[in-house]
């Protein structure tokens, strides 16, 4: 075991997999010699060689296309899109190509690729360094979408993603890279060290795709969150003094519906929290599923707390970000307080 922040844990996942499997390689913008703008690939080129960790042209569509061709020819490329906000030039390659290759070729070809990308806000990144586009990918048949919330999961999920034979969109909440963040932006920055999730095995282990984690058991209400919002949800529940059960989804597709269903059937209430914009967001899918699976157990309308349907505004970051105050309001509404 070693204490790792999320950057180190992700780096360790890549290192372990490159050590274990010569077919694993990683590339992207500034990924090689420099080690990536967030340092996730630091040292990998020196340890595994230039052919296994290298820089690419600024061409996200070309990066993903090359990964598809390599993946189809037996390699396991892990590509980095420097910010999720830059993933759109590769959207056609992801949606029309990687996601459908197995299906349209009736299994002759597949794209076992992992597309990593720092995502989400909370760092004053403005419109082009803050977005949460997971809903664009969960809408596409053939893709898996993963969002870790802590170092231990980040490493175990990334190893699972690399070993998975389907294309995986792996979104890394960049505000969590160096420490947990519960939305209290006015408080001192915290580090991962000292938290149990920061104790990470140095070797190989997996956190399976499609399995959620109950990060806080409770009886009164079920909160569904992923990424940064897991920490916001925990803070909100504690500050509101509500016995909320908090489920960290970890993988959006495939979704762990069993864990969600069992919890909501027990609590009868559900609050969904995500940072992405609201309309057609993944929260809408979660509401629909909870309604389909748990309707007769519900005691209150399902609530969702999300980013607003605006571009991510630089100066209004904290009015945009669905912080603990907004989550507490939703919790109180769903509990019937103040009505």
């Amino acid at each position, binding site marked *: 075991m070693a204490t790792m922040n999320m950057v180190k844990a992700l780096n360790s996942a890549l290192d372990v997999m490159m050590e274990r499997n010569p077919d694993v390689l990683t590339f992207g913008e500034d990924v090689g010699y420099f080690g990536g703008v967030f340092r996730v690939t630091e040292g990998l080129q020196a340890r595994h060689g230039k052919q296994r960790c290298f820089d690419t042209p600024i061409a996200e569509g070309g990066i993903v296309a090359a990964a598809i061709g390599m993946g189809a*020819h037996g390699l396991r490329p892990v590509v980095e899109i420097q910010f999720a906000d830059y993933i759109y030039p590769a959207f*056609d390659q992801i949606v029309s190509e990687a996601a459908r290759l*197995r299906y349209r070729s009736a299994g002759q070809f597949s794209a076992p690729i992992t597309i990593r990308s720092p995502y989400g806000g909370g760092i004053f990144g403005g419109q082009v360094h803050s977005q949460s586009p997971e809903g664009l990918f969960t809408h596409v048949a053939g893709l898996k979408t993963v969002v870790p919330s802590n170092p231990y999961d980040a490493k175990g999920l990334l190893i699972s993603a690399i070993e998975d034979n389907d294309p995986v969109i792996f979104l890394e909440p960049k505000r969590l890279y160096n420490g947990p963040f519960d939305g209290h932006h006015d408080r001192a920055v915290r580090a991962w060290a000292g938290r149990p999730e920061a104790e990470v095995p140095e070797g190989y282990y997996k956190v399976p795709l499609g399995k959620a984690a109950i990060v806080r058991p409770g009886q009164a209400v079920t909160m569904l969150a992923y990424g940064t919002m897991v920490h916001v949800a925990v803070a909100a529940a504690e500050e509101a003094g509500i016995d909320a059960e908090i489920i960290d989804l970890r993988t959006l597709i495939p979704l762990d519906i069993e864990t969600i269903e069992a919890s909501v059937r027990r609590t009868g209430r559900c609050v969904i929290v995500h940072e992405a914009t609201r309309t057609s967001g993944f929260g809408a899918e979660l509401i629909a599923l909870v309604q389909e699976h748990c309707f007769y157990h519900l005691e209150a309308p399902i609530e969702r707390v999300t980013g607003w349907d605006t571009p991510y505004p630089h100066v209004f970051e904290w009015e945009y970000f669905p912080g603990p105050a907004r989550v507490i309001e939703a919790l109180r509404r769903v509990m019937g307080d103040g009505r």
Partner: protein
Amino acid sequence: MTRAGIATPKPVSPALDDIVPPPLTGLRIPEPQARPGTAPDFSGLVLPHAGAARRPAVDDHPGLFRELAYDLIRVLDEDGNAVGPWAPSLDPQLLCAALMDMLVTRAYDHRMYRAQRAGKTSFYMKSTGEEAVSVGAALALTNADMCFPTYRQQGLLISRGYPLVDMMCQIYSNARDPLKGRQMPVMYSSREHGFFSISGNLGTQFSQAVGWGMACAYKRESHIAAAWIGDGATAEGDFHYALTMAAVYHAPVILNVVNNQWAISSFHGIAGGLETTFAARGIGVGLPALRVDGNDLLAVYAATSWAAERARRNLGATLIEMVTYRREGHSTSDDPTRYRPVDEPDVWPLGDPVERLKRHLVRLGIWDDAQHAAATAQAEEQVKAAAKEAEGFGTLGSDQRPSVASMFDDVYEEMPWHLRRQRQELGI
């Protein structure tokens, strides 16, 4: 002023009075030389003599032969002689086999077109007049070289011996369709025959081929990748991603632009074909670039072999523009008489690839009209027999389909719960 020690002339501003304002003609929109109702006109296509283009060594620096991006590599002359430094020495039996592959491709296209018209399938796309582009390439490559084709390289599959019946079952989306009825007609896939799954989106596979080639280099294989794209789709970003990445990583890949003059109703000038050649797009990124008579099977073969050797020797990628002509509509949904002269295909200056190879074989004394007539009849018979067999497994709209349950397979390697549930919802 100096920069890096090089003196640069001081800029001189012209006096304002010296500037003559240009006439206000508005936005320039390129137009083809002829439209329906006017005489076809290919005077814009410069035709160098066969044999005139020089053949560089495969390890020459691309900067030493840039003129080949603007030239036109031709081997077969008007009389059917193979001339010049690009003339390959090929076993005459292989040439006869290539001619047969072109004849089968043509007969196949004809038959499948009529099958669509007869309501046996939804859609079809012919490659008539462009057969040398794919058959010539197949002759120069091995089956272990992965091809990333467009929807007009069916000749690759035919040359590589993929069964016609399997091709037709895909066209009919029937019970024996190797792709289980999931893809539109002509979007074939056969890993075994080195034929990558056709997407149907334009250009996307050009850059994937570079990735495949990069994997070949990474694994230190001698196999290579080859890709095709239409003149129209060179305007897509994927084309430029492919060129940049192929050049940067010296990917062992052959990048072919099939300039068949028309992208549905848009002539090549709408993709920038009037400004410079499509081959010349390679020069800016430092790739070797060849412009080739795509209706001359020997030239196609020679250029592809040259590029393949370059790639196999780890010298990197080559961009080849195959100049050809789309004789038929874009697809069965298209009517080319609405946007180009009806007789334009008949006056295409590079002629017909089948006739040109035939003339060469006659010239060599190994082929004659009677043999050609017999071979044509044999190709048609072969296609007819295959069609009969394929139709026995069903045509589109018949009850003979892949199982409906299979619709939910292969979305993921393992079916997730939500797809299982949706399959149940459909009642299967």
